[in-house]
C-alpha cells in the first residue's frame, strides 16, 4: 500500500469539503476519503491520495479542488430525502396550521441546512401543489454554512444527475424548465425561497418566527452541549405551536427536555413544550 493519508491531510480534506459543501466527514472516515479520491489521484498519475493532497495544498488548482469535493459529496442530497417529513407536512402540519391561523396569514418555514436547495424547493413544490395561494402565502427561509451552497440554492438550478435523485417526474415537468444542460425551478417557486449564510453554532440573527423548521442531519455533527444550544436557539425563533423535523437518526430526547415528541405521519415531529 502507498503512503496513507496523514491526519493533517485528512483534516485538510475535511475542512475543504465542509467549506465547499457543508458536508461533515466524521473522523474515522479516512478509508472513505482514500477510496473516493484514489481514482482522481490515478488520473493525475500520482501514486496515492496522500500525494494528491500534498500537491493541491502546495499549489491549489481549482479543477482538482472541485474534483475532490465532488468525489466526496456526490449523491448526498436528494429530493424528498427520507419522505416522511414531507408527507407529514401536507398531511398533518399544514391542515393544523390552516385551522389555527387566520385565512391567508403567512406561513413561515425554515430549511436550516439547505445544502444546494433540494429540501427548500421540495417544500415549495409540495405546498404550491396543495395549498391555494401558497406562492404568496408561504415564505421559506433557507440557510447553510456554506456560501457556495447558498448561491446554488438562490440559483435554483440543478444538473441532470441531481433532478434524477428522487424528484417525481410529474413535479419535474410541472415546476422546472430546461436551461441548457440544467433544469431551473420556476420563478414563482424561487420567489418563495430566501437563502442566506448562517452558522447554527454561532449566534442567530433576527429570524422567524417560524411555523415549521426542518433541521435534519445537522445535530449529528455537534457534541451534546452544542446540540442543546442549537435546539434552544431554534425554539426561540419558533411559534409556540410550531413543528420541528429532525433527521431520522436524530432526537431531542436526552438532549433538551423542552420539546415534546409527537407522532406525525409515519414518523415523528417535535413541538415546543408549553411553559418551558
Amino acid at each position, binding site marked *: 500500500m502507498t503512503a496513507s493519508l496523514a491526519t493533517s491531510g485528512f483534516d485538510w480534506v475535511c475542512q475543504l469539503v465542509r467549506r465547499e459543501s457543508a458536508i461533515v466527514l466524521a473522523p474515522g472516515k479516512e478509508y472513505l476519503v482514500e477510496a473516493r479520491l484514489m481514482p482522481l489521484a490515478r488520473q493525475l498519475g500520482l501514486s496515492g491520495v496522500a500525494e494528491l493532497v500534498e500537491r493541491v495544498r502546495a499549489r491549489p488548482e481549482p479543477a482538482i479542488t472541485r474534483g475532490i469535493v465532488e468525489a466526496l459529496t456526490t449523491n448526498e442530497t*436528494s429530493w424528498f430525502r427520507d419522505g416522511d417529513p414531507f408527507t407529514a407536512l401536507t398531511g398533518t402540519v399544514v391542515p393544523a396550521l390552516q385551522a389555527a391561523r387566520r385565512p391567508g396569514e403567512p406561513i413561515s418555514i425554515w430549511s436550516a441546512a439547505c445544502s444546494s436547495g433540494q429540501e427548500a424547493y421540495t417544500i415549495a413544490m409540495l405546498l404550491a401543489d396543495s395549498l391555494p395561494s401558497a406562492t404568496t402565502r408561504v415564505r421559506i427561509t433557507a440557510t447553510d454554512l456554506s456560501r457556495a451552497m447558498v448561491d446554488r440554492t438562490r440559483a435554483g438550478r440543478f444538473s*441532470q*444527475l441531481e433532478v*434524477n435523485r428522487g424528484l417525481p*417526474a410529474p413535479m419535474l*415537468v410541472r415546476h422546472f424548465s430546461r436551461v441548457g444542460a440544467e433544469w431551473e425551478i420556476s420563478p414563482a417557486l424561487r420567489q418563495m425561497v430566501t437563502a442566506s449564510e448562517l452558522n447554527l453554532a454561532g449566534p442567530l440573527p433576527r429570524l422567524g418566527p417560524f411555523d415549521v423548521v426542518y433541521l435534519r442531519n445537522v445535530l449529528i455533527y455537534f457534541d451534546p452541549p452544542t446540540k442543546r444550544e442549537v435546539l434552544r436557539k431554534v425554539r426561540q425563533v419558533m411559534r409556540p405551536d410550531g413543528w420541528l423535523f429532525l433527521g431520522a437518526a436524530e432526537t431531542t430526547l436526552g438532549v433538551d427536555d423542552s420539546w415534546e415528541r409527537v407522532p406525525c405521519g409515519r414518523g415523528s415531529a417535535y413541538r415546543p413544550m408549553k411553559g418551558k
Partner: protein
Amino acid sequence: MRALVIDDSRAMRRIVASILEGFGYETRPAGHGREALDVLEEGWVPDLACIDWNMPVMDGLQFVSAVRAVPAWRQVTLMMVTTESEHGQIVKALAAGAHEYVIKPFTADAIGDKLSLLGLMPVPA
C-alpha cells in the same frame, strides 16, 4: 418483486438488472417493446418495467401505450429509463401512461430513490 428490463443495449440491460437485483428484484430482459409484450402475454407480469425510449421494432412509448390498453396489466408500474431528456418528451411519456422517468445517465441511488417514491422498494427480509 419482478421487473422487466427493456433496452436494446445489452450493457444497459445488464446495468439496470444488476441494480434491481441488488434491491432484491427478480428480472427478465427484453431487447425492444415487442419482445417485452411477448413476455407479458406469456403470463410473466412484473411489478415494474424499466423502459428505454429509442429501440428497434417497437419503441418505449409504443410499449407504454400498448400496456396501458390492457386492463389486466394495470398493476405494472412503468418507468422510462432513457436518454430522451427534453421537458416535452417527459410530458409525452407521462401522458401516455408512464408513472416515472429516469434520465440517462443515472446512478444506482437514482433508481433506488424512484423505487422508494413508487413504494416499490422491497423490504429487506
